[in-house]
């Protein structure tokens, strides 16, 4: 059995909580800024299907269900029973006073099984899951605040 992985990360985003909540609540938006998600398909108000973007044979999929949902404040979700990867997550939106935006806190937890699927997850998350969640959250902030995600991929360069 692999160790459970739990990470928390907080970031302040210069947008109203309602706007951030709305965007995140549509899980199909998550792959825009979450590097390791290839696709999320929303089935209905509660359930969705998540696919990671690992190497070909390393792709992992699961169904998830929303377990708690308070408008403009909080969303929690978890994988359904018997999913390949037992995982859960939540996001909290806390408006700041004095025009200082919204404090966003993300918590994710994975309980990867032993074997190939567990190894694929471990590979996907790399050595620093906290770093990766942090980077995802930074990209969420960029997208919300500026409408795009800063990149240099595809720019010209000289010979290496």
């Amino acid at each position: 059995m692999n160790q459970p992985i739990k990470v928390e990360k907080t970031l302040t985003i210069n947008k109203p909580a309602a706007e951030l909540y709305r965007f995140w609540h549509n899980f199909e938006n998550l792959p825009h800024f979450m590097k390791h998600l290839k696709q999320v398909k929303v089935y209905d108000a509660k359930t969705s299907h998540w696919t990671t973007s690992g190497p070909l044979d390393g792709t992992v999929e699961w169904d998830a269900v929303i377990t708690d949902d308070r408008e403009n404040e909080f969303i929690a979700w978890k994988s359904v029973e018997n999913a390949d990867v037992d995982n859960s997550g939540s996001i909290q939106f806390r408006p700041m006073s004095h025009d200082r935006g919204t404090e966003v806190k993300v918590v994710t937890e994975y309980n990867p099984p032993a074997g190939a699927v567990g190894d694929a997850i471990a590979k996907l998350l790399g050595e620093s899951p906290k770093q990766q969640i942090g980077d995802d959250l930074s990209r969420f902030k960029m997208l919300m605040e500026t409408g795009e995600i800063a990149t240099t991929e595809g720019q010209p360069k000289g010979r290496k």
Partner: protein
Amino acid sequence: MKAVCWQGTKKVEVENVPDPKILNPRDAIVKITSTAICGSDLHLYDGFNPTMKPGDILGHEFMGEIVELGSGVKSGNARNNGQPLAVGDRVVVPFTISCGSCFFCNRNLWSLCDNSNPNAWMAEAALGHSPSGLFGYSHLTGGYAGGQAQYARVPFADVGLFKVPSELTDEQVLFLTDIFPTGYMGAENCDIQPGDTVAIWGCGPVGQFAIRSAFLLGAERVIAIDLVPERLQMAKEGGAEVLNIEEVEVGEALKEMTGGMGPDSVMDAVGMEAHGFGLEGFYDKVKQAARLETDRPNVLRQAILACRKGGTVSVPGVYTGFVDKIPMGAFMNKGLTMKTGQTHIHRYLRPLTERIQKGEIDPSFLITHKLPIDQAPHAYEIFKHKQDNCIKVVLKPNEAA
């Protein structure tokens, strides 16, 4: 297109590379008419910034004509009188990349933009937090391809690109991209009061603008310190009294010149490389503890010791890592204030352009060399070694060699 590429320590090459493309909706492509080599490019040239990679396109002081706009470049901004950008506009490009909508941009702290550095993780590991992305200035600040090239891609064009008045020449407005505002902010950070004397270490391009800016901001006297004769001469032409560090003991001389008080404010316009301060192995180490080689930040030390009690230390000079043996006792017991930062270029574009239009300053005084882009390797060498009286080189990338 042709571009000046970093290929290792003391090695730049003019290479043919693909033209830049629009990558994000708020990008623009600028055809570059004039581009300069900055003293901070020499930090890269000398290999002092370990997050450079071979093939990186250098340059962060550039201007030109908009040839393409992304679909998301729509709104104007106050700096451009609310006028939206259009293909064909003649613009200068701030070296700091700023989104215009984060906490910091909203507070006029443009060089601290939260959203323009795709490698923020690297900067956060090294500095605690990430400054804005910068053109042509290492991967720590985004690794954006720079402007010593025929074309450049400019992110957040709707925020950064500044339309320049047609009656002003490239040579008059080019330095709005960095060194004029940098010298000006360095002087602003001196908190100049009527009757003040400002001492400025470093008579390179930033120091030259700092001297003139200090006078624009009401300084009574400016004392400029360097060791290169032609730079001291240029400082003198800007109205400064000058000290050659090879000829006098600077601290003692400053005290004598100011009736024993010391200068009201002091400025380090030299930075990390003055005395062999160096970083090594930085890129590999940001994930762990940074291992740094430090040397003697002589200028900063000397400036702190020279400053009068209750005075201000302004640091426009660039530092990347750690410095040893800062005289904190002097700093604390004399009740000094330090102000620093990468320049908030956007803040200064309009007011400084107006000063140029009014004839209060003509930034073109600084230029000693105009060369075609093919001569960039030669230009780096003469600038580095201060040969041929070189103080500032401007390259013309789209003119025939």
